[in-house]
């Protein structure tokens, strides 16, 4: 199991420092606690993804999170002022591949049968951890062996995705 303690600590610190301001803002504009939670959690994802890719300009994380949350709240209010989940339309991750891929059955398969490989690929592609750290966390001797393992995992997952996708009639949408 990959250690996620450091990330959890970071999330806890960000939650404690920045959520009160977001909650106060959303409450003042008539939103509920769930609304505040939704926009804040989406803001945290955006913050995290920008931070790991090195696209973070702001140094004041609290102000940055409040800024994103205000933007998300405004967008939610403008678009639907209802309970539609934000992830689908506000977290801008969609690319060409997403348009064709359904996460349900294939994702479930990967979460169970291919979890270790998915965690390793996630550590590399999403969390962008250094190879040395990934080797340590996954118990590999060194960077060389974890690099080879990464490509083996990529090949295995790619072939699984292909195979499973072609098996499920409802996969290609």
């Amino acid at each position, binding site marked *: 199991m990959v250690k*996620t303690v450091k990330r959890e600590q970071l999330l806890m610190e960000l939650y404690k420092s920045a*959520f009160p301001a977001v909650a106060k803002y959303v409450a003042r504009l008539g939103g509920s606690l769930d609304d505040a939670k939704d926009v804040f959690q989406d803001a945290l994802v955006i913050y995290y993804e920008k931070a790991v890719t090195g696209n973070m300009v702001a140094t004041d994380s609290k102000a940055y999170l409040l800024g994103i949350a205000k933007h998300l709240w405004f967008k939610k209010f403008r678009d639907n002022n209802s309970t539609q989940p934000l992830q689908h339309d506000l977290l801008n991750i969609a690319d060409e591949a997403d348009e064709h891929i359904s996460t349900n059955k*294939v994702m479930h398969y990967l979460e169970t049968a291919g979890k270790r490989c998915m965690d390793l690929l996630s550590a590399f592609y999403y969390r962008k951890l250094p190879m040395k750290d990934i080797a340590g966390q996954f118990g590999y001797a060194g960077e060389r062996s974890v690099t080879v393992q990464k*490509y083996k995992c990529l090949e295995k997952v790619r072939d699984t995705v292909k195979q499973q996708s072609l098996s499920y009639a409802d996969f290609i949408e």
Partner: protein
Amino acid sequence: MRTSLNNLKLVDNHLLGLATPQDNLLLQAKVILDPALTDDIYWHKQTLSLVHQYSRKQLLAEIENVHNQLFTRPEHLSFRQSILRFFKR
């Protein structure tokens, strides 16, 4: 690394924008010689997209876990109360 893994590395670097111009040329040549590689590139892209979705799902689960801790554990009572105060009508 065996050939299939070397090809995988070539495609990966290409999709991540890390390939050198020479490597991109090499990939183009390989695609011409082996059309099946086009198929591999397509599924490689799908895989990277799924890894992203998987990772984001994990992150959201961790965030939810932090939220639950803050709103249930006794040591965070004052934090919880300060938040709930904003929503009292």
